[in-house]
């Protein structure tokens, strides 16, 4: 992990937060920061080479970063008194259906438009 790369990520997050605030859109700052950094990589390819190692180092442990929010289940579950069944069935089936629908449509349309790339593994 290198410090200047971390600074680049933070600067772009700040830019993203700033843009989100100024435009008053509901899109999160970090997502806008991601898009801005993607543009910057295309304009200055050396920036991508410089930050590559740090980006991978952070992304390798992306799971870790969800733990504090995940433990929040504890605080909310004690407050939800009813609707357990509706919530758990709704979450489980809709997520699985979304994966199936998204993958199926992407796969079929890919075969339609570009049969060659669809068969790559």
């Amino acid at each position, binding site marked *: 992990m290198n410090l200047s790369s971390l600074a680049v990520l933070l600067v772009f997050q700040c830019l993203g937060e700033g843009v989100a605030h100024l435009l008053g859109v509901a899109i999160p700052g970090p997502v806008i920061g991601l898009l801005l950094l993607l543009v910057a990589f295309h304009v200055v390819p050396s920036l991508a080479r410089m930050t590559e190692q740090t980006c*991978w180092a952070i992304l390798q442990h992306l799971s870790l970063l969800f733990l504090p929010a995940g433990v929040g289940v504890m605080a909310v579950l004690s407050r939800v008194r009813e609707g357990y069944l509706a919530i758990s069935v709704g979450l489980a089936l809709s997520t699985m259906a979304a994966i199936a629908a998204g993958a199926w449509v992407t796969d079929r349309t890919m075969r339609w438009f570009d049969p060659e790339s669809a068969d790559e593994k």
Partner: protein
Amino acid sequence: MEKLIRFNALWVYLAASPLLGLTMTLVAYLVALQIYRRFRFHPCANPVLIAVVILIVALSITGTSYKTYFEGAQFVHFMLGPATVALALPLYKQWNNFRRAVLPLLLGLLAGSLTAMIVAVGLAYELGASREVMISMAPKSATTPIAMAIAERFGGQPSLTAVMVICTGIIGAVSAKFILNWLKIENHAVRGFALGVASHGIGTARALQISAEMGAFAGLGMGMNAILTALLAPVLFPIFLR
């Protein structure tokens, strides 16, 4: 008994500083990662799921509140922002592959995103959930900040939405392999993309563990669904709530 009381006093002392929450988070993650490796990265041994269970059990046994825990854990939580920005790198590396498949990706995004919202709200309605629960549930496939903002704007409960988002992520990361194998979809790009659309960052974390290509497409799916959910919610919610 006296030892136990002393240990308890020591714990209360340590828990008062952010150090303990931070340390517990890292240790629980490392333990979960070790278990995940032992099971050769089987999706059911998902490290987020295991580490969260370890932490909740540890906090319950010691009687530590979530608020106290989060004072330390917030430093880890904070890194979600820079990590989201860092997803620009795998996206950049896969750019040429995206360009070849823009239309299929957009159609897949629309299918995945709409299915997630409509099936969730429909099932919740059929099973007699309250209006508040339905609204809180609708944006759950989008990444946390966006899902919470949408729930809040339309009269849901943002803290409930945050939990549903996390559960959705874990459900997707655990089940994706079985669903995609059943559908006989082998292309890593398609597998990653569908996982990212349906279960955001936690799905992306899982995809990154399989391959860089799968991770990049998952990151793309997550980012695109964040934007689409923000655009679709104002259109769909009035229909849902009629």
